[in-house]
């Protein structure tokens, strides 16, 4: 048998079910995001950790040109080194019959008669290599699946200029290849980049590495600073062509997954609290309205002997039911969303397994947070229950005092009729409530505007990168830097309209305490096909002396225009060059540094060298050209610009980018929720006044004006605030999501703000329509009977 107060509770809930549901849904969204992101963070980092651990991923990587194996023993004896492995790794091209363009690949050695001490592989299908069969390979599972290759199949690949046939005996994954974009790109495309593992002996023979290695892998005891080790390695390997040792933190695949987790954590800190705040605000106004209209009943209950606590508990229960319902709904949605998103993540991050694992503590804390938030919303109101004495409660409340607060100038007011004055005074009388309503709507609008802005800005990023910076159709990379003849040769190929040489040189940039492993990209004078541009999209003339840094790189190194940094070139004679920063270039992906081609070659004492070329081609002859390029042993890779672009577009549309659309829908729901709830409550509060106005002879529209005028003003005021919030949000997103791998620009896209404003107006019109409908049906006699 339910206590009578609980009966009342259930009936009250049923009476305001629409609003209660709206609030519960807002809360559920907050909890959903919390549960989903927390679960994802948990799953990704836990899976990553155990994957790394189980397959012994190295903590330090030291690529080198060619070093003798005996160095490994020396390294193994260093203090603070727990394991060492040397291996061979090199670029390759896979030639598939159905592809006219060879596919870039990385060949990695596996020891012949033992398991690798570090960077082991996870065998997904087939068997391990048989060291007696030198043509066997294990192929990266993602690529094999994308291309329909199975264990038992044969494929041909070009290694070091020679074409060989390989027998695929198994499909594998490895923690170092979690995220595998093709070199120079940021979005992986399973079809266009491959990794294969093969016998160390065979790879050594193919790459001329007999008795040598070109990569050292190391692990250290936990908590040991690796700076000294990196220095030692660089010193030791210096004379063998060290490219610069780096830690796992700088490992590309690990960088991407770590950034992803970091960004989830950032979002998790910002987004759910916004939803919770909105829900608390809505609960506050609903419960506040309820206590106000039930003060007579409260007085009566007190007169009967109920204590303030018992009555407060009654209202708290009301709030708690909504909160707990919202929290549970959110948990369910969060688990569903999390499972869905883990699927999306697995498209890009190749975990052998990724189970969406929810920490029970997350569920408990989400529910607790919801309860605390709900109680916070109600606490202010419950105080009023205590303050109310039975005698007071039984009397009608005195009218709200409009004599306090900001007085409008009489001159200003004289211009308005009485209904307008009512609207203005009501807004002015409760400035906090007005501001919260404006803030709430603005927040909802900011979410949509921010999301739309990022989406549109992304399109512009693509256009900027692929139409303005890179105006070529494809680029080729050579196995080794070549002389100027190579360019003439390329230019004479059928279908090539223009060829522009480029030289990419690995380098380590130093400035003060900052250090960045990157690449110097040297461009021909006044390049046409691939350019460095300033923030206005104007080409930057590359100086004869000095270097042009991308904004991202300048940010990483904390350098300004005019500063001189040390560029430690890791190729050829390896000069260490102090170079002044001549300009800052705008880029959207990567963190490049540009120099004039001649200037760089002069500094390296290697005149006329290029490491690749950008080509503009006649598409009618594309197939012939591709066939020619495929047969040229000097060419390490051919990249079609459109492929890179499509991969990025696909990711934005189908992958992680798709969540942005979900966020927009949520933003729209929230905006509508706030607008509608505000209007609904204003209507409930004003029902008696509105009925009085109707009784006095005001028409339906005239009476509606008093209510909807308020909604209209709040909405109109919210729009500019929403624009400001939206800009702030895009700036936050840009700051939170930009790094040296990719940059989210803070471009203001007017259409994003316009569309968000239109959405808010539509929400307001829709709410206005619903309220007007109720207003027209208002039972005058009934509304007048209520005394408040």
């Amino acid at each position, binding site marked *: 048998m339910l206590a009578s107060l609980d009966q009342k509770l259930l009936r009250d809930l049923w009476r305001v079910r629409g609003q209660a549901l709206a609030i519960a849904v807002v809360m559920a969204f907050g909890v959903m995001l919390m549960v989903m992101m927390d679960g994802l963070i948990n799953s990704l980092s836990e899976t990553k950790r155990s994957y790394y651990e189980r397959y012994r991923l190295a903590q330090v990587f030291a690529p080198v040109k060619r070093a003798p194996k005996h160095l490994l023993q020396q390294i193994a004896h260093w203090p603070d080194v727990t394991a060492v492995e040397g291996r061979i790794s090199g670029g390759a091209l896979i030639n598939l019959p159905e592809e006219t363009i060879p596919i870039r690949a990385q060949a990695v050695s596996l020891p012949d008669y033992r398991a690798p001490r570090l960077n082991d592989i996870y065998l997904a299908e087939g068997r391990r290599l048989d060291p007696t069969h030198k043509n066997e390979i294990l192929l990266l599972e993602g690529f094999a699946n994308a291309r329909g290759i199975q264990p038992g199949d044969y494929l041909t690949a070009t290694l070091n200029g020679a074409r060989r046939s390989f027998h695929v005996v198994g499909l594998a994954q490895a923690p170092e290849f979690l995220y595998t974009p093709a070199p120079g790109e940021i979005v992986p495309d399973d079809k266009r980049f491959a990794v294969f593992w093969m016998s160390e002996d065979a790879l050594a023979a193919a790459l001329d590495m007999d008795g040598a290695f070109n990569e050292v892998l190391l692990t250290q005891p936990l908590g040991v600073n690796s700076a000294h080790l990196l220095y030692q390695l660089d010193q030791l390997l210096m004379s063998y062509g060290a490219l610069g040792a780096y830690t796992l933190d700088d490992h590309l695949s690990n960088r991407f997954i770590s950034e992803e987790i970091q960004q989830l954590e950032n979002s998790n800190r910002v987004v759910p609290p916004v939803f919770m705040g909105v829900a608390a605000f809505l609960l506050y106004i609903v419960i506040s309205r309820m206590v106000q209209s039930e003060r007579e009943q409260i007085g009566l209950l007190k007169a009967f002997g109920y204590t303030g606590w018992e009555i407060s508990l009654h209202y708290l229960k009301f709030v708690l039911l909504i909160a707990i319902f919202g929290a549970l709904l959110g948990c369910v949605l969060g688990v569903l969303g999390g499972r869905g998103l883990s699927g999306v993540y697995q498209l890009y991050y190749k975990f052998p397994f990724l189970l969406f694992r929810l920490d029970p503590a997350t569920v408990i804390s989400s529910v607790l947070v919801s309860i605390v938030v709900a109680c916070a919303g109600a606490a202010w109101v419950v105080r009023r229950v205590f303050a109310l004495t039975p005698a007071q409660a039984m009397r009608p409340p005195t009218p709200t*005092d409009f*004599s306090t607060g900001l007085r409008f100038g009489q001159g200003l007011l004289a211009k308005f009729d*009485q209904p307008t004055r009512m609207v203005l005074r009501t807004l002015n009388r409760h400035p906090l409530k007005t501001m919260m309503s404006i803030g709430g709507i603005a927040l909802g609008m900011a979410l949509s505007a921010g999301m739309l802005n990022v989406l549109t800005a992304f399109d512009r990023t693509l256009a900027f990168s692929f139409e303005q910076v890179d105006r070529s159709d494809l680029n080729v990379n050579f196995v080794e830097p070549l002389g100027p003849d190579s360019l003439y040769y390329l230019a004479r190929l059928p279908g090539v309209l223009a060829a522009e040489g480029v030289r990419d040189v690995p380098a380590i940039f130093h400035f003060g305490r900052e250090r960045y492993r990157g690449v110097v990209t040297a461009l021909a004078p006044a390049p046409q096909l691939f350019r460095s541009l300033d923030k206005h999209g104007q080409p930057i003339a590359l100086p004869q002396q000095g270097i042009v840094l991308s904004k991202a790189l300048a940010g990483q190194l904390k350098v300004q225009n005019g500063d001189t940094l040390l560029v430690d070139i890791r190729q050829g004679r390896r000069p260490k060059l102090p170079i002044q920063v001549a300009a800052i270039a705008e880029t959207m992906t990567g963190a490049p540094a540009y120099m004039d081609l001649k200037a760089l070659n002069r500094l390296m004492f290697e005149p006329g060298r290029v490491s690749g070329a950008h080509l503009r081609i006649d598409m009618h002859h594309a197939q012939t050209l591709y066939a020619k390029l495929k047969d040229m042993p000097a060419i390490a890779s051919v990249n079609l610009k459109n492929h890179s672009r499509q991969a990025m577009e696909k990711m934005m549309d189908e992958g992680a980018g798709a969540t942005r659309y979900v966020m927009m829908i949520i933003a729209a729901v929230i905006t509508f929720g706030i607008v509608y709830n505000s209007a609904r409550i204003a209507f409930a509060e004003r029902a008696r*006044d509105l009925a009085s106005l109707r009784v*006095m*002879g*005001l028409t339906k529209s005239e009476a509606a004006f008093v209510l909807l005028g308020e909604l209209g003003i709040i909405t109109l005021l919210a729009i500019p605030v929403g624009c400001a919030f939206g800009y702030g949000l895009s700036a936050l997103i840009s700051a939170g999501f930009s790094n040296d791998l990719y940059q989210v620009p803070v471009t203001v896209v007017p259409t994003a703000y316009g569309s968000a404003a239109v959405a808010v107006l539509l929400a307001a019109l829709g709410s206005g329509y619903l309220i007007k409908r109720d207003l027209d049906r208002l039972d*005058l006699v009934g509304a*007048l009977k209520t*005394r408040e």
Partner: protein
Amino acid sequence: MNNTGLQGLDLSRPAFAMQGLTKVFGSGPSRVEALRGVDLTVPAAELVVLLGPSGSGKSTLLNILGGLDSATSGSLFYFNQDLGGMDESELTQYRRQHIGFVFQFYNLMPSLTALENVQLVTEIAENPMDAAEALAMVGLENRQDHFPAQLSGGEQQRVAIARAIAKRPRVLFCDEPTGALDSKTGRTVLNVLQEVNRELGTTIFIVTHAASTAAMAHRVIHFADGRISKEVENQHVLSAAEIDW
């Protein structure tokens, strides 16, 4: 405003004439007959007091006469106009131009000052009196810039009366106008109503529980069970100051 349907009022007729007026709320087991056939004729410029226990139908009648509600059956004429046949917007115009209301709980707009509350009505009426003048009639010329929260109950009710009479309505409906007031203030309010009736010739209906109010009426109508149980025309009308409270 030709859509009022109230053009060409024949003022020689009684202000209200009704025959067999009934009002039924709900249906089935929850069916309530609030009015069970009311026949009544009220000449213009009278002050009418409706008495009766709660639920006897007096407020229902008031709401129907005031155009807030419609009768279930029967005929109802306002002068020569058929109130029963008016649609929603005609009723709005009827209330706007002809009717004033005074309620037990004043129903002032808290966000408007006393003067502005009155202006709310004078702005939309066809031939209103000056708002300040209306406040002066109820003795509140010094309080016109005060908000409702700054006025006592009696003062608020007088503002409500000023607001109701400012449009020069032909009829004023007062539902328990003194119900929330102490006797002294209540007397002041009744006094104001009587003056309005006398000086402006406004027909006034007062619904009340206070039987003593009957002494100041021209006509007293007793309600019981949805019917008129007794109708009395006072030969000698007392002033509000004289009645026994």
